[in-house]
């Protein structure tokens, strides 16, 4: 499989959907990929099955603030440095790249870097969506250490972090990222092919592309949201999916706490039933309740899309009056095990409730 120039807009749209409101606008990631693919050609995308158990798999991502990234854009050489630095620490040259998260801008970076370095990209990731913190991955849950962890900036300065655990690496890393200007490249979770097969979520790059294509195709035939749902039902992970609300945004509350955009978005039904849905978010959408009744919760996906075009709406772009549909979908079983729920279930976001899967809700 390949992701070509002509696929990038669909891929970016699918990534925005899997970003569940967070992860930043993938537009810049898309331009970065397109620039790299024009110059170096499209990279090969390989499945976890095809991956050599002895392969050296590296991640590449950006850490910082979307509002800074839109100003500094993407350098690229810093990403190569982060990977090279990590190689020199582990003593193992990278043989494949893989996204940490498949939502937002970070799903696109490994494609561009793989093109530049002539490496394949692994069709898998560690989040199956987007999450706000670096330790919230299946890699971490299933025993792949986050450290050693390299941060690099556009001056080609780099910092190596060897932390005691994922959560500590995240908080040290965030402090360093701030000092480095809040738009830095990171490479971490260096792993063997065998680790990736065990701890990675297979097929999520294909899924992002499929989602983007389903929305685009639905637009040509008149019902993008329905087409999207039909597609999700054919996927291995997201098949428990449904439209949980059709309404208009009537209230929006946002505040910044602990470096995150935390808030609540309220929608009112368009069918005059007065029914309301409340979605709480911490960059990404966390919990959706309709008239007090739980409809979906993290880590299951809660995505707000434009009701006419199916275009995913990021948390930053939510505004009063937007008519939207809310789509909820299941995540892979490996993201719903007790240890996974400990890492990125409701309690990891301060919501003192047990996780209930979407298929067990009505």
């Amino acid at each position: 499989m390949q992701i070509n120039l002509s696929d990038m807009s669909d891929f970016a749209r699918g990534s925005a959907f899997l970003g569940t409101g967070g992860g930043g606008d993938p537009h810049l990631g898309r331009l970065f990929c397109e620039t790299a693919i024009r110059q170096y050609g499209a990279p090969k995308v390989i499945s976890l099955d095809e991956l050599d158990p002895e392969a050296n798999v590296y991640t590449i991502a950006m850490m910082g603030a979307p509002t800074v990234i839109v100003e500094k854009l993407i350098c690229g050489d810093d990403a190569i440095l982060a990977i090279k630095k990590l190689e020199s620490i582990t003593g193992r040259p990278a043989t494949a790249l893989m996204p940490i998260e498949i939502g937002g801008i970070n799903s696109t970076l490994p494609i561009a870097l793989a093109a530049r370095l002539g490496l394949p990209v692994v069709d898998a990731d560690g989040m199956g969506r987007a999450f706000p913190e670096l330790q919230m991955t299946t890699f971490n849950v299933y025993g792949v250490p986050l450290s050693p962890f390299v941060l690099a900036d556009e001056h080609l300065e780099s910092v190596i972090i060897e932390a005691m655990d994922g959560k500590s690496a995240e908080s040290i890393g965030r402090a360093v990222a701030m000092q480095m200007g809040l738009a830095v490249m990171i490479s971490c979770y260096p792993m063997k092919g065998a680790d990736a097969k065990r701890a990675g979520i297979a097929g999520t790059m294909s899924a992002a592309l499929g989602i983007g294509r389903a929305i685009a195709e639905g637009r040509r035939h008149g019902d993008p949201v329905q087409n999207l749902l039909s597609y999700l039902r054919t996927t291995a992970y997201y098949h428990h999916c449904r439209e949980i609300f059709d309404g208009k945004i009537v209230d929006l509350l946002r505040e910044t706490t602990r470096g995150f955009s935390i808030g609540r978005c309220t929608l009112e039904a368009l069918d005059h039933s007065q029914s309301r849905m409340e979605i709480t978010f911490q960059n990404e959408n966390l919990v959706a309740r309709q008239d007090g009744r739980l409809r979906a919760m993290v880590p299951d996906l809660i995505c707000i899309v434009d009701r006419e075009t199916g275009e995913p709406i990021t948390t930053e772009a939510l505004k009063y009056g937007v008519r939207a549909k809310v789509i909820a979908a299941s995540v892979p079983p490996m993201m719903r095990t007790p240890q996974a729920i400990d890492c990125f279930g409701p309690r990891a976001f301060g919501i003192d409730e047990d996780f209930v899967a979407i298929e067990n809700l009505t």
Partner: protein
Amino acid sequence: MALPGGPEHMRIGVDVGGTNTDAVLMAGHQVVAWSKSPTTADVSTGIQNAIQSILSDSGVSPKDISVVMIGTTHFTNAFVERKHLLEVGVLRLALPAARGIPPLADWPEEMKRAIGEHIFDVSGSYQYDGRTNSALDEAAVAAAADEMVRRGLKSVAITGVFSHVKPDMELRAGEIVAERAPGVSISLSHRIGRLGMLERENATVMNACLADLSTRVVRSFGEALQRLKIDAPFFVSQNDGTLMSGATVQKYPVLTFASGPTNSMRGAAYLSGLKNAIVADIGGTTTDVGVLVNGFPRESSVTVDIGGVRTNFRMPDILSVGLGGGSIVRTGGAVSVGPDSVGFELIRQARVFGGDVLTASDIAVAAGLAEMGDKSRVSDLAPDLVSRALAAIQFKVAEAVDRMRTSAEALPLILVGGGAVLVSGAVPGAAEIVRPEYAAVANAIGAAIAQVSGEVDRVFAYAEIGRDTALGAASAEAIEQAVAAGAARQTVQVIDVEEVPLAYVPGGAVRLRVRAVGDLVH
């Protein structure tokens, strides 16, 4: 509302649209005369005709005119149609950042060809808090300027990382280019856009490619007034409904890109006396719906594509729906109106004008809401069909209004534009429907009543300096900018404060946008 010149002086407002040039003569709050004439290719003849007509109608002497305000979509049209554009030297101050996404990366091929691909990347950038990220490489700027001269470029766009936070490097680079390449037109991004370097750079390049056209158009405005023996200064309205001088629009033509809809909304606010309302401007092809907040159009928070290029400059948040006097009415099964329209062919294709296309205008005539053409040509329409078509129109307007509402509270709806008669009954979601006099020339009136503004859009560290200090500093700076732009200090007030907390950034960093406006000193 206090107006420049006071009630004893006469002001002229002009709106140069794609089809018509409207002019209005105002004395204080009174509309003395108004006219509509066809827009001409040279712009100035159309303006001259429109103004001549109101002067003749009113008998007012040209020397009694104290100020002329012009709104125009001419620059937008020129860019979209790729007419009269200059090739541009694109100078980006960012290295070592941003290398992965070169300038013009997201421009359509034909647009790139129109402006050439003269790209120059040099070192120089700030951090989000204004700290230097990389020093400006002055030698590289000079070398770039020399190369631009060698290539015969006449216009340069300069964009730096976080230049809207701190413009110093852009200003210095501008000085160097001016020294090495005398006579070259220079566009600086911090004067044009806000956060988001790619979009700001795009807008700056768009501006630069219009440099030659803007010089000619501004000159032709002046000449049109001269030929009319109007000695008064003229101003041009910008996207947010405020004014800039001829000299400013010559340098920053891109700031007029959305002035058309803004002026009609501001005109609607003025004519109705309402400051918070929804405005629907119903034209021949589309209905533009926007929201007035404190007398100004609410701005769009998302990027706006113009000619296929993403921009982030100040634009009113407008929802355009395919509904107007020329909208085609279909009657097979459910009755539908639009979104397609016969457009300027209305006077040939509509039933009442002898054509055979059933349009929204025919429905209006059949329902007795408007008088035009030959009413007998629609007498065969069943009353039930007419009322169902009117209901479909009503539904479209209601849906657009509902979508644009800023809060759950119902707001008044102001109807302007030639197609306003199409809406006959109550609109759900509108507290009341207001149909002001002179609604047909609301845009020219919007131009005539414009004010001047100042704006600050920057990231502040609330945790360090506190919210009150940050708000105070930003407000004071916005007021100073309004005064610098020509506002009378005692009339300046802060009309808009927007706080956006930055995600993923600890330390209470908040992006703060403050806008102040005031009346023009005259």
